[in-house]
């Protein structure tokens, strides 16, 4: 459901009615203390972890579950992304899982009974050179075969959709065309996590903040519990869903994963009159922009080159990105950068996720979403819940194993995606 109407009285001076967010529900998740034992422990209280807990409870009837969050709920990448949602990925395996996710998005507000500002305003992916056009068109044809809504737009079509975009052939990297996914869009990130948290909590899931997992109780290569900053918690199954800390947790459990953790920055402007009703992405010049419901421009930058857990990146990345943005949107010249921030993205060698069993029995891992995690939240939680509940991967996450790095069966979204916000 697309929500654009305001629910609070609005200011009248100035050129625009102020759109306000509706009041949040009077209750979210129940504050609880950790129990001595659970059937399943989810490590990581971000969107993916909360969604995993929710689907374990809802789809598989497992409610004796704890979600353990080191910091504050959804304070990691869930709070730090650009909220872009789409499913028009190149490879069949990727398209399948992201499309599954998008289908879940389309009913999520009803499902959770929570306003998420899920807005299917469409996602444009621009092409700026002939080879860029070639690969984007391939993407478009691939989507068509996979039953994913996708259109190919000429620069003129793009201009109709986004009147403020500059399609002049004279700019350094002119717009030569674009793929368009009408069902793509954005949602309000914090509320997605809170919606899952509330729904999971209502189903009896324990959500515990400020508790850090310091190790695992593993006997006969089988996980028996987790050691935490608040003591050991016994459990039969553990799901690691802690983007930005996956390598650390895997090492604690005694195995290595092919993940590098990098800073990924984003920024937001002050409230502005609506000028952009579509999500615009351009991997070639690293511009990922949408205008949120309240009116702020939300932009994503490219990932920094080096490993870091500092949740901050280099300012030069922001500067180059804004230069590119102004070539595309001259009207942004006087928009202001209000706030910049960084998340920690776990990037696998093929820029595809890892959702699978691990060398440790009953220990499952979900990581490596790179820059694409937010859009995958429902689908990721859904297949992770299935994998944990049944002990076997769902066909949707079957290709996304750790084993693929040994067999060589990578799902290389690098060539296709660049930075796949």
């Amino acid at each position: 459901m697309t929500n654009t109407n305001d629910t609070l009285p609005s200011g009248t001076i100035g050129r625009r009615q102020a759109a306000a967010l509706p009041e949040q529900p009077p209750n979210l998740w129940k504050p609880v203390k950790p129990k001595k034992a659970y059937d399943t422990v989810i490590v990581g209280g971000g969107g993916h972890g909360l969604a995993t807990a929710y689907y374990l409870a809802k789809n598989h009837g497992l409610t004796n579950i704890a979600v353990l969050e080191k910091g504050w709920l959804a304070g990691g990448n869930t709070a730090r992304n650009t909220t872009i949602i789409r499913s028009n990925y190149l490879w069949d395996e990727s398209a399948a899982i992201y499309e599954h996710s998008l289908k879940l998005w389309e009913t999520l507000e009803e499902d959770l009974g929570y306003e998420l500002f899920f807005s299917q305003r469409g996602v444009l992916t621009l092409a700026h050179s002939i080879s860029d056009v070639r690969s984007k068109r391939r993407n478009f044809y691939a989507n068509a075969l996979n039953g994913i809504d996708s259109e190919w737009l000429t620069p003129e079509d793009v201009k109709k959709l986004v009147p403020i975009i500059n399609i002049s052939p004279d700019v350094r990297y002119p717009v030569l065309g674009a793929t368009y996914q009408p069902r793509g869009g954005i949602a309000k990130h914090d509320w997605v996590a809170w919606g899952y948290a509330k729904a999971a909590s209502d189903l009896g899931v324990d959500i515990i903040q400020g508790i850090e997992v310091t190790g695992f109780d593993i006997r006969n290569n089988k996980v028996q519990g987790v050691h935490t900053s608040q003591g050991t918690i016994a459990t039969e199954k553990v799901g690691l869903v802690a983007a930005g800390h996956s390598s650390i947790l895997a090492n604690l459990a005694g195995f290595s994963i092919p993940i590098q953790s990098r800073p990924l920055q984003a920024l937001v402007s002050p409230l502005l009159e609506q000028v952009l009703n579509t999500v615009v992405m351009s991997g070639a010049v690293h511009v990922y922009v949408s205008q949120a419901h309240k009116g702020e421009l939300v932009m994503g930058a490219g990932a920094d080159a080096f490993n870091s857990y500092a949740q901050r990146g280099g300012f030069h990345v922001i500067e180059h990105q804004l230069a590119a943005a102004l070539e595309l949107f001259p009207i942004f010249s006087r928009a202001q950068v209000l706030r910049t921030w960084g998340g920690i993205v776990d990037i696998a060698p093929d820029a595809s996720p890892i959702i699978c069993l691990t060398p440790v029995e009953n220990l499952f891992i979900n990581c490596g979403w790179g820059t694409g995690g937010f859009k995958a939240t429902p689908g990721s939680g859904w297949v992770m819940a299935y994998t944990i509940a049944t002990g076997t991967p769902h066909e949707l996450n079957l290709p996304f194993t750790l084993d693929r790095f040994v067999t060589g069966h990578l799902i290389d979204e690098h060539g296709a995606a660049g930075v796949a916000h």
Partner: protein
Amino acid sequence: MSEVSFIFDDKLYKGQKGEPMAAALLRSGLLSITNSTYHGRPRGVAGLGVEEPNALVQMVSGTKESMLPATVIEVADGLAAHSLTGIGALPEAPDEARYDKTNHYVDTLVIGAGLAGLKAAEEYLCAGREVLLIDDQPVPGGHLRHLGLELPAALRDVLAHGNLTYLCRCTAVGLYDQNYVVAIERRSDHLGNSAPANRSRIRVWHIRADKIVLAPGGFQRPLIFANNDRPGIMLSHAAATYVAVHGVRIFSRAVVATVDNQGYRDALRLRHAGVQVQGIYDARSGAGGSSVDAARAAGIPARFRATVLDTAANAEGTLHSLTIQDLDTNETFQIGADLLAVSGGWTPIVDLATHIGIKPVWSEEHAAFLVNHSTDQLRTAGMLAGDFGGDDDPSVFFGPALDPEQSRYAYIDLQRDATLHDLRRGVGAGLTNIEHIKRYTTIGTAHDQGKTSGMLTIGALCQLNGNVSPADVGTLSFRPPYVPVPFAALAGRERGELSDPVRITVLHPWHVEAGAVFEDVGQWKRPWYFPKPGESMEDAVRRECTAARQGVAVMDASTLGKIDIQGPDAAVFLDRIYTNIFSTLPEGQCRYGMMCKADGIAFDDGVTTRLDKNHFFMTTTTGGAAGVLAWLEEWLQTEWPDLKVYCTSVTEHISTIALVGPKSRQLLRELITDIDLSKDAFPFMHSRKATIDGIPVRIARISFSGELAFEINVEWGYARPIWERLWALGRPYDLTAYGTETMHVLRAEKGYIIIGQDTDGTQTPYDLNMSWIVSKKKEFIGKRSFQLPYLKTTGRQQLVGLLPENHDEVIPEGAYITVLNAQPDKQGKTSHIGFVTSSYYSPALGRAFALTLVADGLNRMGEVVAVPIGKKMIHATICDAVFIDKENIRRYS
């Protein structure tokens, strides 16, 4: 100071040049400036600088920047603005202003030119350091300016010191790792219409300093009470400054509500400026200090344990009267006032310090979060370090206890219209972490990023959580930039043609004159095709192709990467780098080679010539040039230091001209007379030195078209004259220039791949039907990966040709291929067997054709397949990927 006039909300105002617009508006009696964003309540100026939560304006003059606080805009002639309700607008008109950047290195950077900053600067100057002093105000002195005081002479000397650079109107917006600061200097807005055209409006400073001193000062806090947002309610320091320094004379009856001695100091200033101060209501149970005594001596009634509970407004919505509450008896009474000056204590500006992860520490003594930090690299000073000056003993008090109804109008974040009520709901919803409260209430997310509301939120949470200490609640996280910065400033000069380098060959001007249409290949501009007047692209490409196949055509191949490789181990080295063998290559001969990464995936290819035993000349793809050289260096430096090899890029030292076609030898004979170009004397894939008018050139019989072809390699600077001469000689041959499109058609007709077009980063040489190039005899990078299960499975996609049934139908590149009559499954998915990588019309074949990657393609020869294009279904036949001259007679001719 001179008087200027400016326009606000379409009315003319007078002001003193350089004073804040807020001061001029107040002096003229404009109390209510705008309505609030969501609640639509009247709001007026409440602060003194960037912390201002209400008075946001959009410039109508100049660059029309939006969301600027009237408290920081300096009035000048010709300036015009209008009020905003907290939502900015992006003007359509192009931004004509100039924005630039500079890079600056200095021994010591001092941020903040208040007393603390100036004293620090003096200290480092005395120690012989060079100092850069930046400050966001138009004049130095910090609070002195607000007090209307002059700088002491000693500090004026600091500013005059030869080793000091002082930048005013320059705001440090971000502190980054290794003492890197980004600062924004606003350089022309204050000049109004007298700003020079060539002066950049905003300059971004990238500053790297050995030592940084943070002396940013602080913001005064408001208090939380019902209806605390009315015009006429101001921070006491702001009110006193507007009245005492800027001559605002619109207030007659003032009341001061305070929790520190600042309230007394400001009450005195108001009083001295002729404002009747009816009372100071101090929430503390008592306080000493000179300012308290002075206020008493001045006869200003002061009362402890009392504060403001609520306010009332007159018809215009501006302050009319207050309800004062005795905090011991809870008795209340009314008092009339048109100015309420509030002093809730000071909040040091911790923002920059927290940018690099320094955690502020709560000080009960100062009733504030401090950063008292001192290392070799970074030091804090002034208020931030706990030096509040004055005679203060502040207390922790944020406001009286309010009932639910009152809390609906007790504003914490005035920009976001977020109230104590909203905050209570958040706590009620089970939220404990301040970051959750922020997101639940949107407090601190507005234009001012919580500069005044942040501490109020912490204070309110302390009360709601049972009077815990702010230390337990912690601060909100601050992120760059400290104040909003226009996109244009951060883009700087990186606009238009300077937004990214345009790389061109030395022949580029000729191509332009010849009317070439260009394509971007990475940063290069390459001629795509050369249309004659009236020709379509299709016409031009067909003409160019035909010339190359039947006559003689020429192209500028200078963008190819070129690497000079020398040393006794050069051949061994190439054997390890390339999948095929180069040590057996005779001197003076060329060989096509392919490179894989360690994962076995093809990543670059090109022809390498052995100039002599220990000397090779490698060419790479245009896009791969830098990557390949880096790849070679990485292996030499980090794995094989024992190999005696040196690699040198000569991409732009050597220009390459490709002469192609059955008549190319004839034409070349006229240009090159000192070597025998005959088939036998100069066979295919051989290289010869020659001269043209004494200019040394190297000729190679290399063909990317399958035709008889020669490459002329010559020093960059000589390429244009030689190209010109070739054209003069070529006229009788109808010499034709061709671009990248024709090059692609010609090579595709021969089944020659282009890495990056016919590959997508998942193909091994085997997949490209090039097992012949993979040496079985030797080790090379990537070989091991060919043994990985998935890379040796049968049925992998392989490079094959495709011929559409309809000869004129050029299949779109990127299109997917299915078996005949493929049907979608229940999820609407249709499985495919591959896709089209290259597709063109071939004049030579008189039909369209394509190169494709098809699963098990080599075993599907002759199979008719389908290519769905939307509703349309193209039928085509899989065939060998070589379409022309399979026997290679032409290139050998």
